[in-house]
């Protein structure tokens, strides 16, 4: 349901959330004066329901449900255009990162499952192999997202061009990698409570 009314009070504005975003991103949210320059240059604007400047605005108002509910944050390409051009050094790209992390941690209410799925697979790949194996990534993604025939035409072409490796070697330092992952999990769970 589209919410067209906002009741503002100290209880409806979740400013703690905003503080966490500011802490994680290392960027102030308050500095934004809504010039819209970020949104003017954002290549992904047309795929988002909230333009970047509105994301910041919603944060200023402590409306984190509205921010996280949409798919906007998952459509940010981390291109850094907004951060580069913001006249107030609002690091929107970092804010987007922080929002995604918070959403991810909260097992995000976002609708954008494909992007999330791709991210998840990508990271799992690193954990199991140390490096990325594009072939596996693409195949598993298609399988899990139920789009078995996506890029059907592309696969064989890439294979013949030597661009997809069918077989891969695991890194020798996998135990170390595993340790990094588990320690980060530990830190994250500590962070959550």
């Amino acid at each position: 349901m589209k919410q067209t009314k906002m009741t503002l009070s100290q209880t409806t504005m979740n400013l703690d959330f905003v503080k966490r975003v500011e802490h994680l991103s290392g960027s102030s949210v308050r500095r934004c004066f809504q010039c819209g320059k970020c949104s003017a240059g954002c290549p992904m604007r047309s795929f988002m329901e909230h333009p970047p400047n509105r994301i910041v605005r919603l944060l200023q108002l402590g409306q984190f449900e509205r921010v996280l509910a949409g798919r906007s944050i998952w459509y940010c390409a981390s291109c850094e255009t907004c951060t580069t051009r913001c006249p107030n050094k609002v690091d929107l790209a970092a804010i987007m990162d922080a929002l995604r992390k918070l959403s991810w941690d909260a097992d995000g209410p976002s609708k954008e499952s494909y992007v999330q799925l791709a991210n998840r697979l990508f990271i799992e790949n690193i954990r199991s192999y140390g490096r990325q194996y594009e072939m596996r990534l693409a195949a598993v993604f298609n399988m899990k997202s139920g789009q078995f025939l996506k890029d059907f035409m592309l696969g064989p072409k890439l294979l013949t061009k030597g661009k997809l490796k069918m077989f891969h070697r695991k890194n020798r330092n996998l135990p170390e990698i595993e340790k990094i992952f588990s320690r980060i999990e530990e830190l994250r769970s500590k962070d959550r409570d």
Partner: protein
Amino acid sequence: MKNKLSYSYYPGCSLHASAREYDESTRGLFKALRIGLVEVPDWLCCGATPAHNVDELLSLSLCAKNLELASGVEGDLAVACAACFSRLKTTQHTLAANDDKRQQVAYALDGPLAIGKSVKHLLEILAKDLGLEQLSAAVQKPLSGLKVACYYGCLLTRPPDVPQLDCTEAPTIMERVIAAAGAETVTWSHRLECCGANFTLSRPGVVLKLSGDILASAKRAGADCLMVACPLCHGNLDIRQQEIEAASGERYAMPVFYMTQLLALAAGVAPGKLGFDSMITNPVPLLKEKHLL
């Protein structure tokens, strides 16, 4: 020609697979320029966009680990992929400024951090360490007549205080490098626009739109080909080019070269070693037309 330049080398995941021609041409070019290149053993994925997208700490830790691994190899760290370059630089930048994060990463890596290695993109090595004069001196087959649209994408220059490779909004480093090899460069509008990046997997529609705009702009400017320094950009502009054509009804047939392919070609490396055959948009007719093959 004598120079004693030597680097440790972080190819990044793509260069071992979809961007193997970038890897091969880089090695070829550096050999021709007599610049040493020693691959960092057991390097890991830098985490790329997905990691920092949802887990900054993971991204920082993976990069810090790579920097630590690289510290075991002589020479500054040469990076080919713009995305890896950006991640490594961002890691250094973030950890230098943030004690909390530094401590967390140190905990994750279980030890003191060794992240001081100087990280350099190939462009920097060619334009600054080697120098444009040396580079042109090594040219055996000038790329005369080839009109190149240099595509920077997002991460080579942004955000302003991280990569510090060149001017953020009006860089010229790619143009200078390729001009040193005798090519002509075109002035065009979309050099710094986003190609759609890693949405190629999850939302290819995005890529078709954004990369389509880039191809259109390069064509408008009269370019023969595009030159890139990032496997992701390459993937979107080259591998998806036919889809873009199909979706937009425009015909581009615009070869997308890695900068090292063109430079190595100019430096006299055998074309057979430059992976032209693995490009989707066939560059051979263009190169023949320009008498470069």
